[in-house]
């Protein structure tokens, strides 16, 4: 049995030379979790990620609220990416409640979702920068993120937790002149993130430090079940926006960024390229969006379901495939809501990647997995 496991998942024998380090939960390089690292000198011999410090029972809470009142709390795990984390739930609820979505609402959803993906990725990039000791790369994305947050504030009324997607469309229509503002800000944003290449992605120190570290091969990426940018950085062309298009993604031209190396550098570069792709998608959606029309099919406050049903919907979030499995027994409340999040699936690769690496590579490999601790705990 052990022979079939990838080498990082096998148990290690204790040794006197080996020192156990508790990285987290109170550690600047861990996030809301603990990584138990065993080191021999400067080399990591074993690593045991220990998530669960921010478990909030979102899935259980969803069983006591109806399909509408579930919306504000289900987005809490990733408040930076709140549109995307609600997306599969809303798609599933629409199927269970049996409602149609207006065409304009679908485009608004795509725009909001892509903006949110950029907002999340900028936050992730800022932390990746500070994990590598690059303080400018912490401040620049954190500042440029404000542009898109202002845009989302205009659109939804809230800066981070939008609660904008509802079964049947979106909560509010776009504000007047939003298309022009959005186009201008997105163009500026794209120009701005291209400047990051000079200070970060083409930096020789960064390249020599992250290239060739934490290499996840194509086969292992599939075996370990990774998803999103981690999978694409290992050379697998897999993007749910292209492979299983939802809403209006099939009408838009989406390009998938794939890199072959599978190391920390490739994993950090793919989300950056994805942000530029998001800007492209937003521009296309702004062109094709119907100029007028309803954005919401009205529902009653406590809508009735069509009867017992089971749905599984998934979308491409900032961290990869994000699925939502809803079981309905015909009552107004769902019987079970289960979220399959990309963060947790990428975390599984961490012990495998860190084995044999140097301690100095731990932050870059860990954060390049595009992992968000709160989402993994739910």
């Amino acid at each position, binding site marked *: 049995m052990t022979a079939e496991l990838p080498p990082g998942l096998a148990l290690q024998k204790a040794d006197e030379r080996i020192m156990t380090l508790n990285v987290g939960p109170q550690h600047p390089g861990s996030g809301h979790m603990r990584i138990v690292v065993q080191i021999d000198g400067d080399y990591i011999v074993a690593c045991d990620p220990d998530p669960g410090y921010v478990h909030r029972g979102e899935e259980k809470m969803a069983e006591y609220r109806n399909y509408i009142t579930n919306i504000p709390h289900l987005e809490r795990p990733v408040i930076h990416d709140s549109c995307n984390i609600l997306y599969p739930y809303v798609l599933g609820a629409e199927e269970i409640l049996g409602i149609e979505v207006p065409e304009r609402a679908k485009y608004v959803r795509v725009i909001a979702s892509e903006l949110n993906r950029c907002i999340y990725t900028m936050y992730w990039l800022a932390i990746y920068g500070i994990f590598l000791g690059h*303080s400018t790369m912490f401040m620049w994305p954190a500042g440029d993120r404000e542009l898109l947050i202002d845009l989302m504030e205009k659109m939804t009324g809230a800066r981070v937790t939008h609660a904008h997607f509802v079964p049947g469309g979106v909560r509010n229509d776009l504000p007047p002149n939003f298309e022009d503002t959005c186009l201008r800000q997105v163009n500026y944003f794209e120009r701005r993130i291209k400047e990051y290449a000079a200070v970060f992605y083409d930096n020789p120190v960064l390249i020599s430090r992250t290239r060739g570290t934490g290499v996840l091969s194509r086969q292992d990426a599939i075996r370990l079940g990774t998803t999103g940018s981690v999978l694409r950085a290992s050379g697998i062309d897999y993007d749910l926006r292209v492979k299983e298009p939802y809403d209006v993604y099939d009408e838009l031209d989406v390009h998938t960024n794939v890199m072959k190396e599978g190391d920390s550098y490739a994993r950090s570069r793919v989300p950056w390229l994805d942000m530029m792709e998001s800007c492209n998608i937003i521009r296309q959606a702004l062109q094709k969006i119907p100029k007028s029309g309803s954005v919401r099919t009205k529902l009653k406050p406590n809508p009735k379901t069509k009867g017992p049903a089971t749905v599984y919907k998934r979308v491409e979030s900032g961290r990869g495939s994000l699925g939502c499995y809803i079981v309905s027994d015909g009552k107004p409340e769902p019987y079970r809501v289960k979220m399959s999040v990309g963060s947790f699936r990428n975390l599984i690769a961490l012990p495998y990647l860190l084995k044999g690496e140097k301690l100095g590579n731990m932050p870059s490999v860990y954060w390049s997995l595009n992992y968000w601790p709160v989402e993994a705990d739910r």
Partner: protein
Amino acid sequence: MSVIAPKFKLSEFVKSLLDNIFWVLLLMTIVGIPAVQIALFYIEMPVIHGELLTPFLALTWLADPTRLLPVIHALMATDFFRIAAFPGFGFAALLAAGTIFIERKMLAKLQLRVGPFYCGKIEGILQLMGDGLKLISKEIIIPAKADKPLFWAAPVLFVGAAAAFVALIPVAPGWVVADVDMGLLAVFAVIGFFPIITILSAWSANSKFPFIGGIRALFQMVSFEIPLILSLLGVVIVTGTLNLSEISASQSFFPWIVFLPVGAIVFFITMLAELERIPFDLPEAESEIVAGWLTEFSGMMYGLVQLGTYLKLYAFAALFVVLFLGGWNGPMVVPPFPEELLVGVEMGPVKVGPFPGLPLFDQAMLNGTFWFVIKTVGVIFFILLPRGVFPRIRIDMLLSLGWTKLIGLAFVNIFIALGLLYAGVLGPGGLQ
């Protein structure tokens, strides 16, 4: 965009100043003057020049420049003044404090933010004072299993070693605390203390992250000390002396960086590593080992280590200036001292002077200090700049850089120096 600047009202600022002055005057009248009177009642006053020295007479003499200036002049000739104030600790600490402020403001401009802003009305110039007050008022927490005497001693020793380093730097002709003939060797000896202090403090904290940080610091400092020493040998070969004042004086026509650029580059890189600045700040890598060997320090112990770090930064920048950029040498920009003050000035019926203590500082010293400070601040700027541009490098890359590339380049520099000497370009019969 919201307005970030608070509204500055001059009237309120003046009113707060006046309030303070009022309270000072009030307390002085009610408490200060009676206390002085009571003290004077018990003290027997000396008789000088046939006059009883009353407090009134003493204050009168202090206000008389012909009597006060010689006193100041005599004070400035003492060793205490040199150690505590001008070329020594006070001057260096002032420059170090300025360095911290400039670092924060410059980094902020680089990263599109404001930096210290509120404390001190004008661009946050009092931020450092606020931080210092905070550090002093914080509780000092010592780990239960720490080796307490060593743990307490480490910050003090660190500042002591940094101050010893500062004492060896000649700022202006004749203005150096310790003018030793083996000056450069003394510098190497002082630099050799830092890894010992670091590993002692890291080990005595008895904690895992400081221990790893201390080991890293030891590796880094020891492996970069060799290229550091070798890169300075070129200067010693061409000048033929180890005395830092003489090395400074030997560059009156051209700085050594013109002939020994390789050595200057190697010294600059090793300097960054010795100072644990980004990209070589592995011993304090926060995302890996919290704060490295500083993890367990709290309150003013941390403040002392920071003070020592910035004193060390100033001293290294000053050493770079002394060895490669010509030290105090530069065109004369300070105007000469007005001669008529020495003999006295007649203004109609009133004759002012002569003032026996003047001039307090001679022209060469002021000019030397000016150029020295300008050059040092420039070097400090280039030491601070990589922090905004580079990420941290890894320990194995650092060691291979130190042991292979930099040592090789340092030898190249030595051969350049020897070549210049034997070709007769420099040395006896050459340019100098």
